[in-house]
């Protein structure tokens, strides 16, 4: 794959950062070892008075030793370890004349910017990143995560010291207790991921997207920092369409830059097709990848492969070099333990397996892949947004709505209630499986709904802040990094994000249309089959896998008494009864069974305690 000719985006794209305020290089060495899969091309530890930094490196662009981290600023005030990349570092560098740059990379630009502009400089960073910064003057450790939350970052207080890492497994390795947070488990069973700052481990927390956590004098302070990306006033819908076309195209072009092979994950939906449509302008025969499922005819093969088939047609339309992988049901049980090993946090979505398989298959031909994550949340792609808009318009009284059939009965709910109805597994289904009372999930999201705006704006905001960050992006990061593939998400470029946030709802979702403006912006380049397809989620035949003989043996083992200490949290008789009923097709319990299966297998892998 040819590079685009100009110097690539960064020296160090994929990596893991680790560290602690304790003077203990041995512990940080162990943290580096367990996260080596994220950066197998070099590891380094740096001890400073007050902090020990660790870094694992996978150089996508250049192997120059100067670019190895940690890096120290010219004055010696700041030292940094950074995971990820900046897309606008060349532009930022232009404002930093006079700084004695030693590398051509992006990480040093952060140091130079902080030296010149202070913490306000964070708002100008466009990229996917997390980093830890030691301020020797203030004797302060600052942990920073990108505003869109593309890259994960965790921390824990243990033995009076702060530990941090890109992955939770490193914190566990450092001795942070493995106790399961039962409240998080309750949220996980409801939503299939753990939202907000909690994690499945009681002692570990997330640094929230767009936040800087500072640690000084044994005190933690969380500060949101504000992205300074803005957009011109758009006078008309036509102006907005042109702006979307231009910003999305620019973002895709920026993110195609790499000296290693680049590809695109293609689902056949609008978002990934938009990415391909612009990618082929730079790399005419770019590799595209999709995944389908080998199923028997009786297993709705067509239904589960509709996306893959559409992706194949789309790839043909754009003349890409398409790789269409098929995951065989017979291989799934064998793949499951490998996926669990790659899962740093439990995610109860069977698509994770397919994503893991896809990343493994992609690796030989691409080290960097672009995907369409974020397009639905920013431009209003989900059907539930349209229904919510119609419901708000129709103002169906709640008392009446209960008499409506199927999903229409949700027309009577609003705000956080609507969200929970749409997104959470019902307590009546979950509670029999779970030994303790399920937590209050409503209060988690109430703040998101307390901000002003129409119901569609609220739903999009809550999805972008929660499901996208803590499920979709985390899943993408973990599964791609497990195969040492870097997944980039151009729709979450901060310029695109700022534009999408500035657009009125009516440009995105109407009573008849979802993702209206994105479709209009790329209507002339997308094939009709993509534009005219109804919106489908990308889902795997997990419910069917659970009924296969290979999987039945696995579930029996995982759902057996004493499989792991965390098994004690479940009423396993009820779980097994659900499993039997699901297998016998007398009831459908796929969602809760899969989430429980993943959690228990994950808990055993991490030797969780309760």
């Amino acid at each position, binding site marked *: 794959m040819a590079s685009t000719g100009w110097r690539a985006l960064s020296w160090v794209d994929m990596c893991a950062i680790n560290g602690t305020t304790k003077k203990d290089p041995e512990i940080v060495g162990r943290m580096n070892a367990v996260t080596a899969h994220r950066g197998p091309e070099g590891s380094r530890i740096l001890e400073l008075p007050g902090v020990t930094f660790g870094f694992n490196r996978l150089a996508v662009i250049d192997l120059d030793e100067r670019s190895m981290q940690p890096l120290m600023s010219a004055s010696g005030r700041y030292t940094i370890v950074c995971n990820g990349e900046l897309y606008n570092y060349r532009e930022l560098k232009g404002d930093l004349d006079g700084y004695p740059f030693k590398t051509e990379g992006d990480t040093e630009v952060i140091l130079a910017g902080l030296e010149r502009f202070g913490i306000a400089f964070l708002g100008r960073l466009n990229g996917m990143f997390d980093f830890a910064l030691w301020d020797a003057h203030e004797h302060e450790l600052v942990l920073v995560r990108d505003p869109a939350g593309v890259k994960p970052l965790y921390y824990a207080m243990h033995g009076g010291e702060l530990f941090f890492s890109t992955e939770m497994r490193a914190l566990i390795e450092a001795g942070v207790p493995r106790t399961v947070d039962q409240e998080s488990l309750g949220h996980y069973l409801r939503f299939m991921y753990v939202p907000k700052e909690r994690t499945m481990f009681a002692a570990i927390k997330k640094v929230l997207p767009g936040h800087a956590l500072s640690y000084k004098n044994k005190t933690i302070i969380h500060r949101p920092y504000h992205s300074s990306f803005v957009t011109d006033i758009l006078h008309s819908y036509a102006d907005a369409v042109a702006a979307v076309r231009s910003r999305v195209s620019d973002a895709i072009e920026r993110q195609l830059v790499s000296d290693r092979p680049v590809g695109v994950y293609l689902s056949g939906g609008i978002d990934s097709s938009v990415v391909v449509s612009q990618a082929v302008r730079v790399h005419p025969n770019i590799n595209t990848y999709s995944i389908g499922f080998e199923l028997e005819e009786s297993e709705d093969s067509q239904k589960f492969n509709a996306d893959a088939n559409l992706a194949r047609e789309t790839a043909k339309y754009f003349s890409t070099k398409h790789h269409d992988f098929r995951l065989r049901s017979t291989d799934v049980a064998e793949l499951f333990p490998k996926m669990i090993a790659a899962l740093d946090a439990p995610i109860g979505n069977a698509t994770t397996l397919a994503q893991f398989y896809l990343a493994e298959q992609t690796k030989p031909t691409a080290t960097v892949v672009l995907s369409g994550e974020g397009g639905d949340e920013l431009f209003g792609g989900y059907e539930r947004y349209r229904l919510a808009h119609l419901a708000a318009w129709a103002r169906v009284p709640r008392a009446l709505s209960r008499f409506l059939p199927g999903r229409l009965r949700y027309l009577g709910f609003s705000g956080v209630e609507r969200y929970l109805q749409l997104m959470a597994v019902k307590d009546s289904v979950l509670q029999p499986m779970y030994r303790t009372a399920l937590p209050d999930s409503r209060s988690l999201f109430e703040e998101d709904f307390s901000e*002003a*705006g129409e119901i569609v*704006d609220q739903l999009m905001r809550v999805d972008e802040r929660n499901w996208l960050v803590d499920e979709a992006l985390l899943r993408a990061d973990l599964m791609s990094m497990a195969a040492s593939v870097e997944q980039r998400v151009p729709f979450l470029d901060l310029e695109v994000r700022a534009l999408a946030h500035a657009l009125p709802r009516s440009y995105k979702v109407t009573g008849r249309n979802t993702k209206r403006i994105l479709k209009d912006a790329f209507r002339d380049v997308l094939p009709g089959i993509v534009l005219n397809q109804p919106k489908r989620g990308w889902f795997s035949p997990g419910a069917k896998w659970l009924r296969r003989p290979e999987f039945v043996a696995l579930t029996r083992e995982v759902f057996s008494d004493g499989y792991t200490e965390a098994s004690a949290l479940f009423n396993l008789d009820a779980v097994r009864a659900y499993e039997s009923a699901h297998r016998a097709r007398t009831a459908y319990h796929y969602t809760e069974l899969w989430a429980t299966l993943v959690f228990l297998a994950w808990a055993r892998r991490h030797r969780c305690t309760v």
Partner: protein
Amino acid sequence: MRNYELRQAIGAFKKYGLFSGLRYLYYRCICAPRLVMRGQPIDRTPARTDLSMHMLFGSRDFLMALWSLASFYQVFPEVGVLVIHSDGSLTRRQLRILAKLLPHARIEDTTAFLNDYGSTLGKYPALVAFRRDFKGFQAKKLIDQYVVSDAPYRIVLDADMLWFRTPDEMVESLRSGIPQPRMMSNGDTVVPVFFADGSETAEPVSRANSGIVMYRRDQFSLDAVAAYVARTDYLNKKFTDQACFASVLKPILLDDRRYCIKGELTSEVVMRHYTSPQRQKFYLYGLDRVARAILGRYVRN
């Protein structure tokens, strides 16, 4: 509708005809108040504590100022601390609205300025007298913004402006530490100010407009302001703040095609200043451009 508003509305019909008059009434009386009715904050959290942004207005220009700030926040990436200088006429309701729509703003009452900050001007009795005796808004705009903030960088904005695009020149200058002050330009219009001794301001000073003033604290000097004021016959109302700002700061003037007072709203225009004689145009040929983006759901397609 108060007298001033009534005069403006009648003026719109007289100057621009029936259709435009009705259009004025729509934007002034129906569309513009929606920003208040919506009740959502229009500002952003200050990311820079080293920058203060100042705007002086009163009850008469209240709505116009809100729209001006809403459009400014939409396009300006470097957010500092907003200081609103109330001319003392803001009603309690308007103050409540400010607290709701601009929750991060600090409000300074210009009528209390000499009580609160008079001692700061102890070295400059002439400026205290000028601030006390000159009744026009210009003295408040000139002196208060400097005294009430310690921020090293500052932007002084008029309330009768609408912003359409990111002001790249200003942003770049700010990010470079404002190497040289900047002000708006009056374009081809030269407005000389006559001093008490009969002399007048030179051409570059007479061409500056104080709709936008942007400077670094050390570039401004109360000594220079005092010297300028001493030359003027301000008691006979012969004083303009823009000439004084320009005389003290010696600014680079912003491109008058992009930061304009007259002419078409082309795609190049970053900001338009709707100065006194053309206030109706703020609603007639400005608000329509920004309303959709700012109000979003309140404006139909």
